C-alpha cells in the first residue's frame, strides 16, 4: 500500500468516526417528541390533543408511519392543539405509530401513539365491533364481531357462531368484501343473503364472528376462492391470504380472549354456518379441525370422511387422503363424529349440478368428482352424497334435508330451522330436528 493511500484511508476513517458521533447527536435531536392526549383508533378517525402547540400556518407536512417507517395514508387536520387523524386504511391495533409534523421553520415533531381497536360494548343493544388485522397474532385481515343484546345476561352455554364471509364475487377491493360482511352482520340495519349467522347469534344470544377475507381476482376472472377454502386457496403461498383456515382459528382464539375480558365466557367449540361458497368453507374446515367445531349448518356437503371410495382417491377437498399435509395430523374421526351437521338444499337449486367453475381444485379433483357422481344431476348427486356418508358409517351425525319450492337461496323459514338445529345441539348428544317441508 502506498503512503498516500494510507493517509487517505486514515483520514477517511477518522472523519467516519466524527461523522458517526455527529449523526448520533443529530438523529436523536432530529425529532422533538411531544405528548398528546386521546386515543388513536385502528379502524376509525381520531382526535389527539397536542401538549405542545404548533402554529397551523407553520405546518409544512404531517404523516403517520408504522414502526418500520412505512407511511400510512391518512387525512389530517390541525386545529389549535387538536390534531384530527383519519387513516384511509386500518391501522394495526396494539402497534405503535409515529405521527410526524414538519414545520416550514424547520422543526420536526413526533407523536408516538399506540393504535387501539374500538371495543366499546353497550350491552343494552346489539353491538357490531371491528377488530383490525394483526399479523403478529396470525391474522392478516380484520374480523367483525356481533355481540347481540342479552349476550352478557345469557347464562346458558354459549358457543361462538362463526360464519366465513362470502361476498359472491372476486374483488381486489377489501372494502367490497367488508361491506358484504357488514350486510350479513346487520350493521346497516338490514341483512340479506347471509348463511344464518346473524339469526343464530341473535336468537341464541351468543356472539357471531365473521372474518373479512379477500377473494382476489385472477387473470382468468375466476379469482382465488378463499371464500370456499378450495385447494388453490389452501396451497397458495407468499400472499397475505395464505392459509385463511389458520387465520380464522387465530381470529376465533383472539375473539374468545377478548370476549372473556368483557365478561362473556364461551365454550371452546364453535357453531359454524355457511351457504354456497361459505358452506364449502365450513365443511372443509370441519374436516380439518373437528376438535374446534360443535355443530354446523351448511347448504353443501361434498367432502367425505374417507381416503378413498369406490376406488377413487379422496384428496382435499373431496376427502381426507392428504388432510395431514395441511393440518400436520391425521383425520380425527372421534371428534368428527361429535359434530352435529345439518345439510340442506332447495329442490330447485342447480348450483351443485356442475363442477363449480369458481372452485379450482385441480384436474384430479374434477376427474374424481366425475367418477363419483357421473353427470352430477340433482337429485342423483345429492342422494349419492347421503349414500356415501351412510355407507362410511357417519350417518348418525348428519341430517340431510331438501326444502321444496326454493332454488339457490335461503328463506326465513330455513333460517328458523337452522336456529332450531343449533338450539337442539347445545348438549353432548347429537339431535335431529323436524325441518319444514317447504322453504316458504
Amino acid at each position, binding site marked *: 500500500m502506498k503512503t498516500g493511500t494510507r493517509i487517505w484511508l486514515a483520514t477517511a476513517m477518522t472523519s467516519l*468516526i466524527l*461523522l458517526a458521533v455527529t449523526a448520533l447527536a443529530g438523529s436523536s435531536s432530529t*425529532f422533538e417528541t411531544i405528548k398528546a392526549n386521546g386515543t388513536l383508533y385502528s379502524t376509525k378517525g381520531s382526535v389527539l390533543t397536542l401538549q405542545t402547540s404548533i402554529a397551523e400556518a407553520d405546518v409544512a407536512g404531517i404523516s403517520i408511519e408504522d414502526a418500520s417507517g412505512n407511511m400510512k395514508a391518512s387525512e389530517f387536520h390541525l386545529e389549535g392543539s387538536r390534531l384530527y387523524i383519519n387513516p*384511509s386504511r386500518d391501522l394495526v391495533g396494539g402497534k405503535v405509530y409515529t405521527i410526524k409534523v*414538519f*414545520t*416550514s421553520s424547520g422543526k420536526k415533531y413526533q407523536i408516538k401513539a399506540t393504535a387501539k381497536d374500538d371495543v366499546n360494548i353497550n350491552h343494552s343493544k346489539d353491538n357490531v365491533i371491528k377488530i383490525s388485522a394483526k399479523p403478529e397474532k396470525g391474522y392478516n385481515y380484520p374480523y367483525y364481531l356481533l355481540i347481540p343484546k342479552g349476550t352478557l345476561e345469557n347464562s346458558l352455554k354459549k358457543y361462538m357462531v362463526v360464519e366465513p364471509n362470502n361476498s359472491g364475487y372476486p374483488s381486489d377491493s*377489501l372494502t367490497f368484501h367488508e361491506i358484504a360482511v357488514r350486510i350479513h352482520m346487520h350493521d346497516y340495519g338490514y341483512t340479506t343473503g347471509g348463511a344464518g349467522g346473524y339469526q343464530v347469534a341473535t336468537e341464541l344470544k351468543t356472539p357471531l364472528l365473521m372474518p373479512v377475507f379477500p377473494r382476489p381476482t385472477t387473470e382468468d376472472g375466476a379469482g382465488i376462492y378463499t371464500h370456499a377454502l378450495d385447494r388453490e386457496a389452501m396451497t397458495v403461498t407468499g400472499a397475505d391470504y395464505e392459509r385463511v383456515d389458520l387465520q380464522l382459528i387465530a381470529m376465533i382464539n383472539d375473539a374468545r380472549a377478548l370476549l372473556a375480558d368483557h365478561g362473556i365466557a364461551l365454550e371452546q367449540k364453535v357453531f359454524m354456518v355457511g351457504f354456497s361458497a361459505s358452506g364449502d368453507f365450513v365443511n372443509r374446515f370441519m374436516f380439518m379441525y373437528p376438535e374446534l367445531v360443535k355443530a354446523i349448518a351448511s347448504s353443501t356437503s361434498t367432502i367425505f370422511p374417507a381416503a378413498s371410495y369406490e376406488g377413487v382417491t379422496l384428496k382435499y377437498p373431496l376427502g381426507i387422503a392428504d388432510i395431514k399435509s395441511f393440518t400436520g395430523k391425521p383425520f380425527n374421526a372421534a371428534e368428527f363424529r361429535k359434530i352435529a351437521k345439518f345439510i340442506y338444499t332447495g329442490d330447485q337449486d342447480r348450483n351443485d349440478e356442475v363442477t363449480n367453475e369458481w372452485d379450482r381444485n385441480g384436474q384430479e379433483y374434477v376427474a374424481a368428482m366425475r367418477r363419483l357422481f357421473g353427470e352430477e344431476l340433482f337429485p342423483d348427486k345429492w342422494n349419492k352424497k347421503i349414500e356415501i356418508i351412510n355407507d362410511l358409517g357417519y350417518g348418525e351425525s348428519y341430517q340431510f334435508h331438501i326444502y321444496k319450492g326454493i332454488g339457490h337461496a335461503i328463506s326465513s323459514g330455513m333460517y328458523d330451522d337452522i336456529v332450531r338445529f343449533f338450539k337442539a345441539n347445545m348438549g353432548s348428544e347429537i339431535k335431529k330436528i323436524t325441518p319444514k317441508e317447504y322453504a316458504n
Partner: protein
Amino acid sequence: MRRSKRLAAAALIFFVLTGCVSCNRAADPTDPPVTGPSIEPSTDPSNSQAPDPTSGSTADLGDGPGTGTTANPSDDPDTGSSVGQSEDPGTKPTGVPVNPGGDTGDPSGNAPGSSDPGNNSGSAYDKVELKVSGYLNTTASSQVRLPDSFKGVTVCGYSMKLGNRFVPAEISIKNNVLYINPAEYLKDGSYYSIRIFSVDKQYELRLRAYDVKDIDFSKNSLFLIPAKPEKGFNYPYYLRVPRGADKSQYKRLMVEPNNSGRVSDDLELHRELARTAAKGACLGSSTAEVLAMPFIMPVFPRPLTEFWDNYYHTLSRDVMEKTSGDGKRVDLQLIAMIKDAQELLAAHGLVLEKKVFMTGFSASGQFVNRFTVLHPDWVKAVFHGGFTMYPTDKLGGNTLYFPLGTADMKELTGQEFNLVEYKKVAQFVFTGDQDKNDKINETAEDYNAYDAKVMHDLYKTEDCMVIWQKKEQYMNSLGFGGNIQFHVYKGIGHGIPPASMHDAVKFFKANNGAKITKIDPIVDAWYFNGDEYWSSGR
C-alpha cells in the same frame, strides 16, 4: 489508527444503524456511500441551528442492505379501491415535464426556494424544488423517477397537498423512484405538491394529475374517471377501451347504466360491481369488445336508505323528481359522462359520433328504455330487456305519466318529447319465456298507485307472456312497429340469455347506419358459440 478506535467506530456506526436513525434512507441500498447530499446548495446560509448537513449522510454510511427502512414496492400497500389505468397493471414512470406555471395547487405561500418569513425559530428549512418528468394518475398509484442528484438523501417523512389540504397517500422511495399511492381520487388537471423532508431540507415536487394520460390501443384498457361536478356528473364512471378501438368502423360509445342488483349506502359496493361489469361481465361491455367500441358505465348509487325512493338504477320517477343533491337528474349526468368520454377519447385521437348504442337488462333495461324516450337525440340504437315505457301521453284511454309515458315529461324535465329523434332510434327489446319479474302486483312498489291501476287496466293479467304480447301490440298500434323489435328467448327466466349476446352484436352491426334494420334473432336462450361470437365483429 489504533485497533480500539476502529472498534469504536464500528460500534458507533452499528449503534447509529440499529438504534438511533430517525430518518429513513431513500436511496438504493446498493448505492455507493455518499458523503453528503449533492443537491442544490442551501438557500439560507444563515441557518446556524440547522443540523450538520453531513449528519444525514453519515447515517447513510451505516445503512446497508437489510435495514428494512426503505419501502419495498412489493410490500406496497395494495391500491385498495383504486383501479389501474389499464387492465394490465403497471404504471409508467415516464411522462411529460411538469409545468409549474400551470399550478393550481399550493397557495400556502411555501414557494419552493424561499424561506418562510413568518417563522420565528431562525432555523427554517432549505427548500429545494425537484424537477422531474412524471405525473399522477387520478385513480391509481403512480411512480416518478427522482433526479440522480437526490440519491443518498436521508428521508424523514413525506406529505402530499392540494392547496392547503393534506391528501391521504402512502409515499415511499425505492431505487430513487418515488411511489405515490393516494387514498382518494385526484383531480384531473390539478397540480399536487409532494414534499419530502430530510434532516435539513424540504424537497418539493409538483405533479399534474391525469384521468387518462395515454391510451394503448393495442390492448384492452379500463379507466375509472372520477366525478366532475363542474362538468355535470357527481359520480365516477368507467371507461373501457378495447383493443383496436382506434381502427374500428363503429365510431360510437356503447353505454350501459350500472345495475348492482342490490342496495347499499356505500358507493364502493356499486363501484366495484360496475368495475366487474365494465371489464366485460355485462352485455354492453362484451358487445363493445366484439365491435371494438369504447364503452362507459356510470357508477350511480342505489342506496339502502329509503330505497324505493332512490332506485337510481331504473331511473324511477322519484329519482327524476330530485331537485337537489348529488343524485339530481342522473339522466343529464349520464349525458355529461358521455360528453366527457367523447372529449377525452377525441383528445387521444378517437373521434366518435354523438349518438350512442345502449344496452341494459332488468333495472338497467328500464333505465335505457326511459332514457331513450327522454333523450332520443343521444341514442342511435338500444338492445335491452326492460321495456316498460311508452312514447305517448295516452294509451287505451289512460293518461300515461312518467315513467309509463310522456304526459308530464315537460313538467318533469323542461323538454317536450322529441318524436322526430325517437323515430330514428333502432330498438330491440327482449324477455325470457319463463320470466316472472314483470308481474304488475310485484312491480307496483316501483310505481305509484295511479300507475299500478293504469298497468292493471292496460294488461288485465298477471301472465308475463300475455303482458309482453300486449306491449308489442300497443307499440304497433301507436305506429312504432317499424322502430322496435320485440323478442322472446325460450327456456329462460329473469336472466340475460347467452343467445342475446350474439343478437346484440348482430343488431348493432345492422343499425350503425341511417336505416332501422330488424334482425333474425336466436330463439333458444342458451345458444352460445364462443368462436363465432368473438369473431362476429369482423
